[in-house]
């Protein structure tokens, strides 16, 4: 047994304390204040109008303002102007469970020096439901943010420096194969095609390394925009057309009559779509088929025995390959996974496709699952943040 009951009692007590009217209970106020003064994070309590009614000692220490200067003002006092709007927006979405928790904003001390901080806001309501407070917890992350910038830069430059000679090789191989540098025999063409394929795979591996590095370091950034999912799938299919022909498989794409628009990071969604379709093509049988479908999953409806409490759009990719051996299916989303029934020449990659795909789906707060048998595999991604879902 764990000490869960004791912890739950403690949390209940704390929750009750936070709901109490501090003005009317000096003892509780003093105890709570002493506790909050031990923290290294800024703790600021705002009333319903956004006016500061309490700060802890860390706030005085980090901002350089004393209590008298801060009480009665607003957090704009120590926000760099460019960050003020951002924080307001963040407060507006505080009850959205997907709100980013670690957005870095810039604050300015009384002496004019700037520091970077993460802000979390917690709504605190009285038991009778009237006037509510907002608790802001701000953490100075200047050192961590500087380190993150260095890490991001090193990763980007390493990827750049690895890709540059590979890109050069690809261009020159392309020119050789196109006859830009003289006639090329059939035998030479075949050899050049092999080299071109190898170089292309190396570029892909560098990109995978870069993605994994960013994911591992928590540096993968998302830039939300409106994405018509069907159009994006069609773009990926167009991009993969040559590979589809080489693998001698046919791909059928069923788009929903009314397009779906997702609010998500385009590159991330594209990488997910590309990986699933590419794998379905690559690990198929000759003359096999791949069925790609985009379909709605309205709030509460079931698909594959799963349902969600919000509308989702599903990307379903079904192949007719030889499937993933039953005993290996639990490892599919792990790093360096290669199914044992895949030919060695096909398993030359880093085994990161599905590891990355799942990590990216999780980044988007989506879900991914699969089923597999000797008749083929079926991967499904459930994307959230559907802006236009026409319920079937």
């Amino acid at each position: 047994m764990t000490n869960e009951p004791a912890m739950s009692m403690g949390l209940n007590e704390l929750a009750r304390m936070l709901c109490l009217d501090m003005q009317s209970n000096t003892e509780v106020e003093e105890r709570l204040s002493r506790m909050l003064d031990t923290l290294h994070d800024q703790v600021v309590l705002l009333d319903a109008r956004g006016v500061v009614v309490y700060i802890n000692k860390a706030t005085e220490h980090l901002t350089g303002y004393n209590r008298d200067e801060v009480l009665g003002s607003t957090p704009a006092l120590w926000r760099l102007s460019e960050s003020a709007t951002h924080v307001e927006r963040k407060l507006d979405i505080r009850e959205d469970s997907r709100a980013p928790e670690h957005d870095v904003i810039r604050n300015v001390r009384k002496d004019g020096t700037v520091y970077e901080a993460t802000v979390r806001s917690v709504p605190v309501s009285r038991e009778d439901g009237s006037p509510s407070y907002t608790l802001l917890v701000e953490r100075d992350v200047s050192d961590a943010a500087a380190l993150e910038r260095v890490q991001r830069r090193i990763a980007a430059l390493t990827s750049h420096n690895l890709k540059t000679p590979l890109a050069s090789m690809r261009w020159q191989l392309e020119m050789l194969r196109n006859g830009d540098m003289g006639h090329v025999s059939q035998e030479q063409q075949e050899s050049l095609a092999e080299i071109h394929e190898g170089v292309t795979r190396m570029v892909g591996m560098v990109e995978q390394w870069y993605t994994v590095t960013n994911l591992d370091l928590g540096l993968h950034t998302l830039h939300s925009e409106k994405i018509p999912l069907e159009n994006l799938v069609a773009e990926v299919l167009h991009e993969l057309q040559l590979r589809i022909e080489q693998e001698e498989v046919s791909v059928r794409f069923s788009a929903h009559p009314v397009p779906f628009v997702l609010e998500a990071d385009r590159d991330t969604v594209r990488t997910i779509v590309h990986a699933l379709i590419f794998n379905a093509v690559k690990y198929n049988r000759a003359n096999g088929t791949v069925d790609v479908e985009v379909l709605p999953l309205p709030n509460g409806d079931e698909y594959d025995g799963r349902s969600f409490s919000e509308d989702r759009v599903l990307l379903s990719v079904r192949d007719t390959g030889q499937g993933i051996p039953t005993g290996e299916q639990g490892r599919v989303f792990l790093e360096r996974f290669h199914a044992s029934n895949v030919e060695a020449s096909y398993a030359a990659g880093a085994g990161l496709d599905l590891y990355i795909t799942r990590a990216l789906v999780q980044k988007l707060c989506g879900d991914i699952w699969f089923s597999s048998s000797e008749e083929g595999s079926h991967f499904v991604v459930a994307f959230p943040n559907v802006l236009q879902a026409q319920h079937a």
Partner: protein
Amino acid sequence: MIEDEKSMAKALEIKLSRLGYTVTVAHNGQLGLAALDTTDIDLVLCDLIMPKVGGFEVLEEMHRRKIQVPVIVMTNLSQAEEEARARSLGAMDFIVKSNTPITTIMDVVNNALAD
């Protein structure tokens, strides 16, 4: 063309010359800006990471000097932030070299100069 990777510059120069274009090659941003002062240029193909003066600085300097020549950025940096920054500085297109066949770049150049 402002490109420090000489093998890539050479490949592009061959392809562009065969399409009938006259190509001036500069191997860093400083030389590229100097060429813009002395040569009648219709289109700039510009790398980003280069010695002395990089591509972003070229874009900033062109903006400062009000040089109205269209710029296509070609790079192996592939983050959305870099593309957004390049476009905000006036780049008309952003090409990730490692993902783009050289024939596609020729199409992009032809389209840019056809406008």
